[in-house]
C-alpha cells in the first residue's frame, strides 16, 4: 500500500476507535453543554465529585463489580482448568457433544436463558444475592475459560508430570511446580477474558441481581436513562478504568498467540 494512503487509513482507524470516548470525557466535566455549543459553557468537577463521593454509592458499586468479576474468574478457573485438561489431553466418545455444551452458553444470547435462570434462582433464593449473580456470570464465562485451558493443555506434554513424579514429587507438588507454571500464561489470558466478560455483564446482573446487586453497568444505565450526561460520562470513564489498567499490565497476553488460543473470545 502507498505509505501516504496507509497512514491515512491508520489515522482513520485510530480516530474511529478513540472517537466515542471523547464526548464521554468532555461530558464528565461539563456544566451546561447544549446544542449547538461545541464546548461546554462551563467546566465543573461536580459529576466527578458525585461519582467519587462516599454516599452516592458509585464507588460501592465499583467495588462490588470488582468483587463479582474476581470471584467469577477464580471459580471459573477452578472449574475450567480440570475441564480444559479433559478436553485438551484426551480423546473420548461424546467429546463433540461435551464441547458443544460447553460452547453453547458463549454463543447463545443471554436472553435465551435468563428467564429460565430467573425462575430457578428465585426458587433457590439466589435472586438479589451477590452469590447468585456470581453463579449466573459463570454461565457466559466458563466456556471461555474451559476452551482456553483446553487449547493450553492440548499443547502440554504430560511427560513433564510423569518425569516429576518419578523424581519424587507428590501430585500436589507436580501441579504446583510443573503443571501450573506451564499453563500459567494461558491461564492468565483466560482469567483476563473471564474478568472482562463478567465485568461487562448487564442483563444477567439486572435479572438475577433483582436490582439489588447494583453493579457499575446498572448504575451507569440508570444515569444514562435519566439524561444526566455529566454523571454518565464520569461513571463511564470509571467503568473502563480497570480494563485499561489490566490491558497496560498484560497487553502481551492478549496479542498474537494468546488471541489465537482464546479464539472463541466474546465479541
Amino acid at each position, binding site marked *: 500500500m502507498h505509505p501516504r494512503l496507509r497512514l491515512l487509513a491508520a489515522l482513520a482507524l485510530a480516530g474511529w476507535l478513540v472517537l466515542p470516548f471523547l464526548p464521554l470525557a468532555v461530558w464528565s466535566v461539563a456544566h451546561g453543554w447544549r446544542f449547538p455549543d461545541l464546548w461546554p459553557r462551563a467546566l465543573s468537577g461536580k459529576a466527578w465529585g458525585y461519582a467519587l463521593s462516599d*454516599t452516592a454509592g458509585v464507588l460501592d458499586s465499583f467495588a462490588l463489580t470488582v468483587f463479582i468479576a474476581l470471584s467469577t474468574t477464580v471459580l471459573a478457573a477452578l472449574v475450567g482448568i480440570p475441564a480444559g485438561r479433559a478436553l485438551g489431553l484426551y480423546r473420548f466418545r461424546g467429546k463433540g457433544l461435551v464441547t458443544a455444551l460447553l460452547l453453547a452458553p458463549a454463543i447463545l444470547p443471554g436472553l435465551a436463558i435468563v428467564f429460565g435462570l430467573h425462575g430457578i434462582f*428465585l426458587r433457590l433464593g439466589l435472586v438479589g444475592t451477590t452469590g447468585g449473580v456470581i453463579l449466573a456470570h459463570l454461565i457466559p464465562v466458563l466456556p471461555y475459560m474451559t476452551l482456553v485451558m483446553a487449547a493450553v493443555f492440548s499443547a502440554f506434554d504430560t511427560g513433564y508430570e510423569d518425569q516429576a513424579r518419578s523424581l519424587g514429587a507428590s501430585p500436589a507438588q507436580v501441579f504446583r511446580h510443573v503443571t501450573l507454571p506451564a499453563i500459567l500464561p494461558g491461564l492468565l489470558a483466560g482469567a483476563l477474558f473471564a474478568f472482562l466478560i463478567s465485568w461487562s455483564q448487564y442483563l444477567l446482573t439486572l435479572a438475577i441481581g433483582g436490582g439489588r446487586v447494583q453493579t457499575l453497568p446498572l448504575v451507569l444505565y440508570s444515569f444514562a436513562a435519566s439524561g444526566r450526561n455529566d454523571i454518565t460520562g464520569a461513571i463511564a470513564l470509571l467503568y473502563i478504568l480497570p480494563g485499561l489498567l489490566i490491558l497496560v499490565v498484560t497487553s502481551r497476553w492478549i496479542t498474537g498467540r494468546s488471541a489465537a488460543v482464546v479464539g472463541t473470545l466474546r465479541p
Partner: protein
Amino acid sequence: MLRKLAVLLLLSSPALADTAEGEALKAMSWDEIVAEARGGTVNWFMWGGADNINLYVSDYVAGILKRDYDITLNRVPITDAAEIVNLILSEKEAGITDAGTVDLIWINGENFRSMKQGGLAFCGYTGLLPNDALVNWDNPAIANDFGVPVEGCEVPWNTVQFAFAHDSAALAEPPRDMAALIAWIKANPGRFTYPAPPDFTGSAFVRHVFTHAAGGPESLLGPFDQATFDAVSARTWAILNEIEPFLWREGATYPNTITQLNELFANGEVAFTFNYDPAQFGLAVQAGTYPETTRSFGLTDGTIGNTNYTLIPFNSPNKAAAMVVQNLLLSGEAQLEKAKTEVWGAAPAIEISRTSPEVQAGFAAIVGHPSVIPAAELAKATLPELQADWLSAIEKGWAEQVGN
C-alpha cells in the same frame, strides 16, 4: 449439588433481620416496632436518575436512620418501577413469602394498582406510624392513588402537579391553555412532541388532551365507562392525529422516554418539556442541563395533580425497619429538608399546619427556584388524576390509533 452450592452462597450473604411476619407487627406498639427494627437493613428500590434526590436519601435520610435507629438504608436505583413489581410478582409465584428482595418501593399509579390487586402490598399498618397524623387522609388526592383507594397499603411521600417548561429566552409568552397549545403546535411545526405512552409522563400529557377533549374532568371521574371513553377517545385521537404532522420529526416517531424529550428541550430542538414534578426543572437548571432562563407554567384549564408514595411489599423480610423509614420520611423535618430548593424542591405530602412551629417557619422561609412554578400557583387550577382503568384504555388506544 446445586442446592448445596446455593445454600453455601446464601450462608455467605449477610443475616437478615427477620420481621417478615406483618400481622405480628400490627399487634405491636410503635416502640416495640422500633425495637424490632433496630439493626435491620432496608432495601429501598427507587428511581435513581437524579443525584440530588439520591444524595437526600443516602446522606440525609440514611444518616438519621443509622444514627437514631441503627437501620442501614440501602438505596437501590432503578429505572422502571414496573420491573420491580414484576420481580415481586415472580417471587410470589415462586412461593417466596417471607424472604423477598424488596423492602420499600417508591411507587404510584398503575404499578400501585398492580401491587394491590396482586396482593403484593403489605397493608393496614399505616395508622401505626406516629407521623401518619400529619397526613390529611380526608384529601381524596391523597387517599386515592390514581383513583385506587390507598387503604393503608402505602404512605404518601410527595405531592406533585403536572407543569410545562419553556425557555423564556427563546419563547417569552407560552400558550396558557390546551386550546392555545394545540394552536401553537400547528403554528410552529417541528417544535413540539411528547413521549410515547406508556411512558409515565407522555401518558400524562395524553390524559390532558383527553380531559380537554372531554370538555373537563367531570364526566371522567369515577370508574371506567366504555361509552364515555369511546366518545372522548375518538375526539382525542382526532386532535392528536391532527397535530401529528406538526410534531418533531413530523410525528413519524416519538421520543421513547421523558428523558429523550428533556434532551430535545435542553438542546433547543423543541420548545417545551413537561414533568409531573416541576421541581425537576429546577434540578435540571442546577445541573446545567437546562438554560438558566427556563421557566415553568401550568394551564388555566388545569393540570393533573397526584401523589406518590412508598410501599412495603408483602414479602419484605424487614417490615419493621421499612416502617421506621416511612415514618421518618413523613416527619416534618424530612419533608422540609426535601422541600428546600437546593435539595430537591419537592412539595410536601403532609399538612404543614400540623407540623411544629419550627418546621412551619422553615417551609415559610423557602425561596422557590425561579425555574419552578410555585405549587400554590399551580394548585389554582388542578385536574384530578383518572382511575387506573382509564389509563390503561387510553394507553392502549393511543398505541393503536396514534402511535401505530
